[in-house]
Structures are given as structure tokens and as C-alpha cells.
């Protein structure tokens, strides 16, 4: 039994490097429960994979994932079963923060620290720490990229189209708000928006008709690189190239497109699934009662928000290693 964390799996999945600090010293053995939506598309799949890969790196973590599901009712049941199993910490990516709030409260009440990943619980009493991306910030980043480009080109009254992800998720609404707010600073606004469902096929379908609806487009923001594959296929099929496109999340595909320099996709704004690795690490520290060795505080902070970065042809090389396969 080595003192080193177990080797990262050889898969191409970007296994996050272990932090180079004292935090990785093996400690007391902890059981970490993990619950997330069904891994039915690239981003969520990457979340599940990253969580598992990180947990495997530590000999002192026993990883206990439960059936991922898109049914709230079943996710509640899943979390209940983890509470009943008395895990040391719970990492939860809820299908909907509000709907799982109560069961997270139950966990907290049962003395189990909850690490809330990505979609946030409304009630701060329901979780110990939140780690996630900045959805509003993502929209802002995309908005600035588009706004600046169009301003530089001197386009007046540009046609700006937005393809959202699942419309009923709060994060979708945050992203759109950020996008609109940033555009406003340039005096622009969104001409048309439609929602898809985070899948290649729905992206393709929505884009096909949107391209018919707008014969000339100046810029297009697509919230999600998974569905972006389908959007790009539709654009190629229609033979359109008069506009710039920005993606969302930061998949490997998207980065390669950007790198090629020949694609309408010239940038993507990150929302990295590496956050799952961080969540597992935080869960371990919290369960073991440790703080973060790079910070002065004795305890892990209450919330950590990843920054949304803009990847373009100029800086893409730096990000390639973090891109997830959609």
C-alpha cells in the first residue's frame, strides 16, 4: 500500500492532476456517496467519469455511486439510500436543486456533509459546500466575445441567434441572462432563440429550421458543445458560413474545430466537468475534517465558483488537455 495516490487511469479522459500539496496524504478512510443525473450526454458522462477517476486515486476513499437517473423521485430515493447507508460525505449533482433541497436537508440533519455540485440548492442549510461553474458568467463571456467581434466589424443591427440547452433548467436561464446583459453593453440584443435538449440530434433539428428562418446571421451562440456537433452539421449541410459561432462547456470536439481555424466555430466558453473531481476532493477533505492546504483557512470554504474562460484559436492549445469528449 503506497503512500502515493493510485495512478490515474490511462484513459484519455482528462484525469485531473493530484494537488501538489499535503492534502493528498492518506488519512482516515471515508465513504463518499455520489448521485447525479443519468449520464445520457457527454458533459454529464464526463462528470461521472471524473468523479470516479478521482475517487480511485485515493486509497482512503470508498466511492459509492448510486443509480444516476433523470427522475427526481428516483434521485430522492437514491439519496435516501445513501443517508441510510451512513456515508461520510455526499456529493450531489441534483436534477433540480429546488426539488432535491429537502432530501439534502435530511442528509445534513443526519450529520452527513453535502457537497453540492453544479446545480445549486436554494437553501444554504442544505449543503456544506457548493462547487460549480458560473452559468451567468458563461453567458457574459460569450456575449462579450460576440459583441466585441461585431463591434470591431462595425455591424449595425446584427442578427444574433441563440441555441439554448434544456429550457426548464435554471442554468439555461442564467446563461441567457448573462448573454443578453453582456450584449446590451454593446447596444445589441438577441434576435431569436430556441432551446434544444443537449443532444446532437436536437441541436441539428433546431439549427436546421433556425437557419431557414434567418437567411443572414451575424453571430450564433450555442450553449452546449454536445448539441453543438449537430448544430455544426446543420450549418455545413446548409452551406452557411457568413457568421461567427461560439460554443459552450469546452468539449474536445469544439476545441479541435476552433483549432482548425476553418470552422464557423471560433470560440467556446468553458463550463468544465473537472468540477466533479474537485467536488470529490473537497468531500474527502471535509469528511476527514481537513482544510485546503493551499489556503490558510482550517476548513474548506463554503463555495467555489469556477471561472468561465473563453477559448479561441489563440489559446486553445493550453486547454486541449482539459477538453472532454462529448
Amino acid at each position, binding site marked *: 500500500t503506497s503512500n502515493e495516490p493510485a495512478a490515474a487511469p490511462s484513459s484519455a479522459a482528462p484525469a485531473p492532476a493530484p494537488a501538489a500539496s499535503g492534502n493528498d496524504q492518506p488519512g482516515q478512510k471515508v465513504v463518499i456517496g455520489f448521485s447525479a443525473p443519468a449520464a445520457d450526454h457527454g458533459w454529464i458522462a464526463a462528470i461521472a467519469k471524473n468523479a470516479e477517476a478521482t475517487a480511485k486515486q485515493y486509497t482512503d476513499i470508498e466511492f459509492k455511486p448510486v443509480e444516476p437517473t433523470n*427522475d427526481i423521485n*428516483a434521485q*430522492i*430515493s437514491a439519496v435516501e439510500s445513501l443517508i*441510510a447507508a451512513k456515508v461520510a460525505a455526499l456529493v450531489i449533482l441534483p436534477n433540480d436543486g429546488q426539488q432535491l433541497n*429537502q432530501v439534502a436537508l435530511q442528509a445534513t440533519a443526519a450529520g452527513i456533509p453535502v457537497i453540492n455540485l453544479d446545480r445549486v440548492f436554494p437553501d444554504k442549510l442544505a449543503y456544506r459546500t457548493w462547487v460549480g461553474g458560473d452559468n451567468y458568467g458563461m453567458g457574459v463571456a460569450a456575449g462579450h466575445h460576440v459583441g466585441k467581434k461585431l463591434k470591431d466589424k462595425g455591424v449595425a443591427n446584427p442578427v444574433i441567434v441563440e441555441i439554448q440547452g434544456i429550457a*426548464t433548467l435554471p442554468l439555461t436561464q442564467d446563461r441567457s441572462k448573462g448573454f443578453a446583459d453582456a450584449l446590451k453593453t454593446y447596444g445589441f440584443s438577441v434576435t431569436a432563440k430556441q432551446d434544444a435538449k443537449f443532444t446532437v440530434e436536437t441541436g441539428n433539428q433546431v439549427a436546421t429550421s433556425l437557419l431557414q428562418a434567418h437567411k443572414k446571421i451575424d453571430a450564433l451562440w450555442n450553449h452546449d458543445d454536445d448539441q453543438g456537433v449537430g448544430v455544426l452539421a446543420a450549418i455545413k449541410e446548409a452551406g452557411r458560413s457568413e457568421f461567427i459561432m461560439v460554443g459552450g462547456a469546452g468539449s474536445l470536439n469544439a476545441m479541435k474545430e476552433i483549432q482548425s481555424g476553418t470552422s464557423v466555430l471560433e470560440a467556446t466558453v468553458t463550463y468544465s466537468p473537472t468540477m466533479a473531481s474537485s467536488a470529490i476532493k473537497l468531500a474527502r477533505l471535509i469528511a476527514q475534517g481537513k482544510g485546503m492546504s493551499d489556503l490558510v483557512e482550517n476548513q474548506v470554504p463554503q463555495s467555489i465558483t469556477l471561472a468561465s474562460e473563453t477559448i479561441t484559436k489563440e489559446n486553445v492549445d493550453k486547454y486541449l488537455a482539459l477538453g472532454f469528449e462529448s
Partner: protein
Amino acid sequence: MKVDTRGVAVREAWWGKVGEARHLGLVAALVLLAIVGVVTKPDNFATASNLVSILSLAATIGVITVGMTFVIIGGGIDLSVGAIMALASVWATTLATQSYGPFVMVVCAVLVGTGAGLVNGLLISYGRLVPFIATLAMLVAARGLAQRMSDRKTQLIQSGNTAIVELSTTRLLGIPLLVYIFALVVVLGWVLLNRTTFGRRTYAVGGNPEAARLAGINVRRHTMLLYALSGLCCGIAAILIMARTTTGSSTHGDLYELDAIAAVIIGGTLLTGGRGTIIGSILGLLIFTLITNLFILNGLNTSDQLIAKGLIIVVAVLLQRRNLKERAP
């Protein structure tokens, strides 16, 4: 008066019904799954808290399944159940409704559910739409309406109305109230189907609508009532899901229609109508729920789960296939 020598077999108690030949396969499948549970997770599966958790999980869709059983025996189908439940949950949790307190919220959910069901019924009985289409239209429209009402946001139950949430958190003899509600709906459904003229007519209307009509049954009105009944069940289910999730949302009950129909059919009810039992449907549903629970406990990864689930469904049904063979092609 003559004594019916076979009258003995008739006066069975409900446990006799569960054990009936036609349900044996289902019971066997349940027992098998339970054994798997006990063997793979000796410390977790057969605990009181896990069993309660299974029943709580089954409750919402269970209530819907009762209504669905009526509709399918009556020769129809209801694709709109999940969407109606969502709409009822949203309507009952708007700020306006919530300002009147929990009682009004409950009434609201029930009325919205029944009302939407009634619209289905009217379209089908008097508008003569095929049930599949009418309820599909209701599915889309009700979800759309729910999204519109809630502005696509999840609506939290407010602190003044926690009485509703207590249906899920308050326990009697260790069992949450919502499980009692589920049980009550099942019992009432069973009685309605087996002990009343309404139930008898449901079999007639589904089995041979022409014969039912010529026997003086108002087939249209009856059909309409069946969908209203299903809507009512969706309204009750809305209350349960509100209790469990502390919210109303347009995303609630997604794809419940498939699960409920599957449970009813695994339970031995024919999609063509005229036959079936509530007990079978509930057993069918419990099989599904048990499968999910076992997966949760064993932490299988999703892909394998799906594959396993497919196989288990096939095996469970093969176990009871003998009853279905009459109608198989």
C-alpha cells in the same frame, strides 16, 4: 335458494387474489428480486427503512397506475398522466394558490387533474378522437401550459404551507403518510373495480363496446368518466410529488405514462381492454420499483443497469406469460 357449489372459490379474500394463478408469475418475480436484494445487500435491502423507501418511491406513480388500469381495462389509453400531474403541481404551487393555504392547494391539484382528465374524456367520447391522439395532445399542451404558468421555474412550497410537505415527512408507525394515501387509493380503486356497477361496466365497455351499448350502458359517458378518474388520480399524485419534492414543476412526471402503462400491462391487463386487475398493476409497478431500488443499492453503472433492466423485464414477463398467451399473436 340453491347453493352454488363453486361459491367457495368466489369468496376469496384479497390475499387469495394476490396468490391467484394469474399473479403467480409476478409474485415469483418479486420474490426473486427480493432474494437478489437480500443476497447482494444483506445489510441494506431488507431493512424497514429501505422497504419504506421503496413504497414512497412507488407511491406517486402507483396512484397514477390505479387510474391507468381503469382506462386500459375500459379499452383506452392515457398518455397525458405525467403531464397532467405536472400541470396540477404547478397550478397548486403558484404564489396565488399558495396564498390560500394547503387545503386550497390540495383542492386545486385535484380539480386541475380531474378537469384535464375530463377534457380528455370529452375529446374522446364526444369528439371521437382516438385516445392515443387525444391524450398525446393533452400531454404536449399540459406540459406547455405548466411551463408557461411556472415560467419554467421550479416553484417551492412556502413555509406557511409545509402541511403538504409533512405528508412525506410525518410518519405513522414508521411509515410516511403518503404511503397510506397510496394504499388507500389502491384499496378504493380495487373496490370500485370489483364491487360496483361502475367497475363491471368498465370491463364491458372495454371488452365489447358494441355489446355494452346494446345492453343499455351509456358507453360515451362511461368512457368520459374513466378519463376523469385517471385525471383525478393524477391530481392526487401531484400532491404526493409536491410533498416529496417540496415543489411544483413542469418537469415532474416526465415519461410516467410509459412506466404506468408498462406496469399495467406487466400486471396482465390487455391493451385491447376488457381484462385486467388492479392488483396485477401494482405488482407490476413494484417489480419496476424494486429493480430501481436494487440498482441504487448496488451502484451499477447506468449502461449496465439499462441492459439488465431490459433482461429482467423479459424474464419477469416470461414467468407469467402463460396468462397472456391467449391473446398473443
